């Protein structure tokens, strides 16, 4: 059985859109993180699909870089959330809004 590459690209586009949509509508910071991860992995899926379609290893190699960066981002992000949580005991974005203007 073979599945056309376009299907994977469409799936990746849907996942990316889902992540972006979730980031906009969800208010919990942890869920927002997950949405960013979803978007990054949608990009990874696109990379791998194109790499297979183009018979080129470069796209698959790029995925490793993205994975490493995503891990590094989460480490920093969770650190920031923990430091805020210590002060405020909340992880809801709407409650964290002392600055306006």
């Amino acid at each position: 059985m073979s599945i056309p590459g376009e299907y994977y690209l469409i799936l990746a586009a849907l996942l990316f859109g889902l992540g972006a949509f979730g980031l906009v509508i969800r208010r919990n910071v942890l869920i927002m993180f997950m949405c960013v991860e979803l978007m990054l992995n949608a990009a990874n899926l696109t990379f791998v699909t194109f790499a297979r379609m183009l018979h080129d290893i470069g796209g698959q190699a790029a995925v490793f870089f993205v994975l490493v960066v995503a891990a590094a981002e989460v480490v920093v992000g969770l650190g920031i959330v923990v430091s805020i949580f210590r002060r405020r005991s909340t992880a809801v974005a709407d409650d964290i809004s002392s600055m306006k203007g």
Partner: protein
Amino acid sequence: MSLLATATIKVPSIDYLAILPVLILIGGAVIIMTVTALIPGGLRRDATTGLSVTTAIAALLSALVEWHRVMVQGATTTIAHAIVMDGFSTFMAIAVTSCVVIASLIGHDYLKREDISSAEYHILALISAAGAVLMASANDLVVIFLALEILSIALYVLVAFNPRRGESGEAALKYFILGGFSSAVFVYGIALTYGATGTTNLTQIIDFLGQNTPQHAGLLYAGMGLLIVGFAFKVAAVPFHFWTPDVYQGAPSPVTGFMAAVAKIGGFAALLRVLLTAFGTQAATWQPIIYAVAVASLIVGALLMVVQRDVKRMMAYSSINHAGFILLGVEAATTKGVEAALYYLFVYAVMTLGVFGVISVVAAKGDEDTTILSYRGLLRRSPFLGACFVLLLLAQAGAPFTTGLFAKLGVLSAAVSVGSWPLALVAMLSAVISGFAYLRLTLLSVRPLGAPSDVDELDVDTAVSQPMHHLGATLLLEEEAPVDVAVRHVPSSPVALSGVAIATAFTVVFGLIPGPILSLAHAATLSLLG
């Protein structure tokens, strides 16, 4: 077995000079990390600032050596064509490392005042700067992404590095979420570009687009659009500027200055290289996007700047406005335009660091006095600091005898010469509006201390005889100003003052003699566009 014995692995050759500034910056950060563990508390702060400045100067010198080599031998690529060393990358390395010198000096007195003896500020600033330098010298979209993340992740932490500051955490969170979002968009843009061209290497993209009409033009355009969005986030261009005011306000003042300068240089460096070289043949497609972003940034930045009551928020909108000006040069997409954008980028970075240096000193302990009114009578309270502040603000507004004038003139004339005169007109209008905000702050600073509220006392006759005075009183919204707000003591901060003095001297000296930086920018542009 015999097969294994004969197989050799080809390793890409590395020209270490091409990555020397990055190596020095990272190496300096590691050294500082080690040294802070060995030095007792009292000396630690002085030692780390000294080391940080030394590292930045060493990186600056190595960038100058690179410059010399590029001017003699021309541009080269190294590490399997992933890194390029040309006039453009070297110009950006010079700009970034100069900014790091000033930022380290400005940070020193902040750390002292807040009683922070650990060295996170210097370490993270050096690493972040290494990311910015790498962004300018990357010749592959994946390397640009990595460099962007080195720059950004260090900045996320830097924004939150003072745990006692409440707004910092909030600002860091906002920056992180929106930064993560923009990175994801950027990566997806790379993936689509890869799909359309079959490579992530910029040189190969140029070759591919030069020889073929892409079969999937939609894919290429989508990729290009997403890349522009990713960059627009980093350089704080409208409509991707939402994080800017909050993050600028919430971050510690020296960090805000560093971010405004270095993140903008890094973002614009990669934007210029990607759009003008890799996508140079597609200029007709991306120019309208840049045009729209530039108009929006100019207008939104200038209008919202005027209504701000907090000086850091005001400078945030000012930074958005300046991003619009730099985009003017990008949109022109000519040698003249790029040259003007490069010049603008360098001088803007230095003058904005100077302004944030003053803001950091005036904000005093706790970094809290950042309302516009706390600048009242600054010139009397602290003549040297006040004088620098006034000069830097005038430069931001584009006054004559400062670098700001040549920066604005350059991008405007580049825009007019390619027929984008409506854009130039919008830019001039926004310069007038933002000029009002700078002028208001300037007048507030030169105002005598403890002057009575003049608004009620002035009648028409005195208003005519003292037009400037009356204008000042109206501009300053004196009625809101309780007199005691302004009399807070400006803390003595000799090291930060030296940083501000360097920035001011740069702005004024190269405003009087614009030749050196202009010719530097010219050579860098020729090296990029050939």
